[in-house]
C-alpha cells in the first residue's frame, strides 16, 4: 500500500496514468451530472462512438498521433454526429432512440472502415490507434496529461462561471426561455462541454465505453443527495476513484484493456450507491417498508 502510494508519486508512468485517469473521471463526472439530469445520458454514447472516424481522419490528414490533433478530430466528428442526431429528431418521424442508434452505429462503422484501412496500409506509425477502441491507460504520457488538464480546467471553469444558467436550463428549461436568456445557446454550450469531457477520456477509456463514464458516476451520486452542487462534487469523486482504480488494475495485469476495468470499478460504486445511497438507497426503502408491515398502526390492534 505504502509502496503503491510512493510509486504513484515518484514513478513516471504510474503518476501520469493516475493523474490522467483522475482528471478524466472528474471532468466526465461533473459534466455527466447535467447529462443525466437532462436525460441526455445516451447522447454521450452516440458522441463517443462518432469520435472514432474523427480520430482516424485526423491521423490520415496529419500523419501524426499528437494528442491535441486526434482530440480535435474526435471533437469535430462527435459534433457532426450531434448535429445529425438533432436534425433527425427534429425533422423526421424517427424518435430519439432510433436517431441515437443510427448515429452511433453508422459513424462507428465508418470509423472501423478507416481504422482497418490504416491498419492494412503498412504505415508503422498507425500502431496504437486501435487502443482508442477500449482505451489503454499505459499509453498516457506527460504530454497527454497536460492536454487533458488544460481542456478539463477550461470545461470546469465554464461550469463554475455559468453554474446558475446550467442549473436553470437543467431543471426548468421553459422558465429559462420565458425570462429571456438564450436557453438554446446555453444548451448548445453544455452539449459542447460534454463533447470535451468525452474527448478527454477517449485515450484511457475508449470510444466504446466512454458514455458509461458520463452516466455511471452521476447516477451513483444522485442516490446520495438531492442538491445539485453536492451531486456534481460526489459524481466527480466517483468518476476520479473509478478512473484511477480501473487504470491501476489494468496496468498491473498486462493485456487487460483499461476501459472495461474502469467501468467495472465504476459499476461497483453504482451498485453500492443504489443499495445504500443515503437519499434514495433501495436498502433503506426496503427496511422502511419492512418495519411498517411488522408494526401495524395502533388503531388496527
Amino acid at each position: 500500500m505504502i509502496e503503491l502510494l510512493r510509486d504513484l508519486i515518484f514513478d513516471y508512468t504510474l503518476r501520469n496514468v493516475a493523474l490522467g485517469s483522475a482528471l478524466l473521471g472528474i471532468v466526465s463526472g461533473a459534466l455527466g451530472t447535467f447529462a443525466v439530469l437532462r436525460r441526455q445520458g445516451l447522447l454521450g454514447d452516440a458522441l463517443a462512438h462518432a469520435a472514432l472516424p474523427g480520430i482516424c481522419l485526423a491521423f490520415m490528414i496529419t500523419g501524426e498521433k499528437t494528442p491535441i490533433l486526434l482530440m480535435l478530430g474526435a471533437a469535430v466528428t462527435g459534433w457532426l454526429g450531434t448535429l445529425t442526431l438533432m436534425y433527425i429528431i427534429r425533422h423526421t418521424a424517427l424518435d430519439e432512440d432510433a436517431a441515437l442508434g443510427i448515429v452511433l452505429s453508422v459513424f462507428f462503422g465508418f470509423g472501423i472502415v478507416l481504422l482497418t484501412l490504416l491498419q492494412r496500409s503498412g504505415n508503422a506509425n498507425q500502431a496504437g490507434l486501435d487502443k482508442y477502441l477500449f482505451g489503454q491507460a499505459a499509453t498516457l504520457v506527460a504530454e497527454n496529461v497536460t492536454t487533458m488538464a488544460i481542456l478539463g480546467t477550461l470545461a470546469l471553469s465554464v461550469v463554475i462561471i455559468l453554474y446558475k444558467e446550467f442549473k436553470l436550463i437543467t431543471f426548468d428549461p421553459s422558465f429559462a426561455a420565458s425570462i429571456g436568456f438564450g436557453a438554446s445557446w446555453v444548451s448548445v454550450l453544455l452539449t459542447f462541454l460534454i463533447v470535451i469531457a468525452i474527448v478527454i477520456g477517449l485515450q484511457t477509456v475508449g470510444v466504446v465505453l466512454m458514455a458509461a463514464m458520463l452516466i455511471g458516476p452521476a447516477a451513483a451520486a444522485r442516490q446520495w443527495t438531492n442538491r445539485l452542487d453536492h451531486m456534481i462534487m460526489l459524481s466527480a469523486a466517483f468518476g476520479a476513484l473509478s478512473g484511477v482504480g480501473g487504470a491501476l488494475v489494468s496496468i498491473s495485469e498486462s493485456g487487460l484493456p483499461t476501459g472495461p476495468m474502469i467501468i467495472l470499478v465504476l459499476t461497483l460504486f453504482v451498485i453500492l450507491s443504489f443499495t445504500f445511497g443515503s437519499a434514495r438507497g433501495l436498502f433503506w426503502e426496503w427496511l422502511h417498508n419492512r418495519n411498517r408491515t411488522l408494526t401495524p398502526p395502533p388503531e388496527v390492534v
Partner: protein
Amino acid sequence: MSSGTVIIIAGILVAVACSLLGAFLVLRKMSMMADAISHAILPGLVAGFFFANGPNLLAGFLGAALAALLTVSLVEAIQKSGRVANDSAIGIVFPAMFALGTALVSRFFANVHLDADAILYGNIEFSAQDTLLINGLNLGPQSFWVMGTLLLINLLFVTLFYKELKIATFDPGLATTLGFSPQVIHYGLMAVVSLTAVGAFTAVGAVLTVALMIVPAATAYLLTHNLKVMMGLAAAVGALSAIFGYYMAVVIDTSIAGSITTIAGLLFGLALVFSPTQGILARTIQLQRQRLYFATETLVIHLHTHENTAIAENESRIDHLTKELRWKPDFAQRIVQNALQKEYVVRVNGHLALTEAGRTFAEQEN
C-alpha cells in the same frame, strides 16, 4: 461456391433477419434497448464458451440468451425503481455487461476464438472457412445454417404474430381490450431480438448488429408509413447494404462489417435527402412553395385593403411594396410575377390593379 459468394449470402441472411425485427424496434421506440442487448450478450457468450470448453454454438446461444434476459429485466427493474431516468438505466446496465465480457475475453480467450477485435468487427470474413460437419458430412458453411435458421424464425414470428405485433405496437390499450397482453408480445420480441443479436454478433460484432437492426428499418420508415411495405423495404435496404458493403470492402481493402454499415448509412442518408415526404429536398421545396403562396396572398390582400381609397394608387406601386412589406426588390419582383401569372393582378400605368379573380381570392383568404 467462392468465398466471396458465401460472405455475400451470409451477409444478406444476417441483414434481412435483423431488419425484419428492426421495423418493430424502430416503431416501438426501442432502438437503444436493441443496442443494449447486442452489447450485453457478450459475457453470456463467453460464459457459454467457457463451460463448453470451446466455441460451442449452442452453449454460446444459451449463455447469450440468459445474459439478454438478465439485461432486459435489470433495465426494467431500474426504470421501475424510479431512481434514475430511463435512458440512464440502459446506460448503466449494458456498459457494465460489455465491460465484463471484454475483460473475460482479454483475460481468458485472448486470440483463441473470440478476441477483442472480433467483438467489435465480427468475423464474417471467415464465414466461408467455417463449415458445418455432422458425422463427417460436410453440410456447407455454418453461417448459412445459423443465420438461415434465425431468418426463418424471424419470418415465422413476424408473419404468425403480424396482427398481434401490429396492434401491440400501435395501440397497446386495444391489445389489452382484445384479450392478449402487450407484455407477452414485448417479451416475445425481446427474445427473438436476443437470438438474432447472438447470430449477428458473431458475424458483424456488437455495434454493427445494432446498425443492421436499426438503420435499414429507419430508412424504410422515412419512405413509407405502411407497415408491410416498411418491412419489405427494410429487408431490401439490409440486403443491398450487405451486397454493396462486401464489394466496397474488397475494392478498398477494409473491414466488411464496417463497409456494410457505411453503405447502410449512405442509403439512410439518401432517404434523408430524397424521401418524398420527409426528405430535406421535399421539405425545402415545400417551404419555398408555401413562402411564395403566402407572399402572393399578402400582396393581393394588401391591394384589396387599399382598393378604392385615396391612397390606392400610391399603395399599389411596386417600389412601394419593398418599403411597406419589407421585401427585398428581387423577391418583390418574383411575387408580382407570380401574381401576374396567376392573373390575380394586372399592370395599369406602372401600378398594380386587382382582377376579379384577385378580388375573389383576397375575400376568400381574408
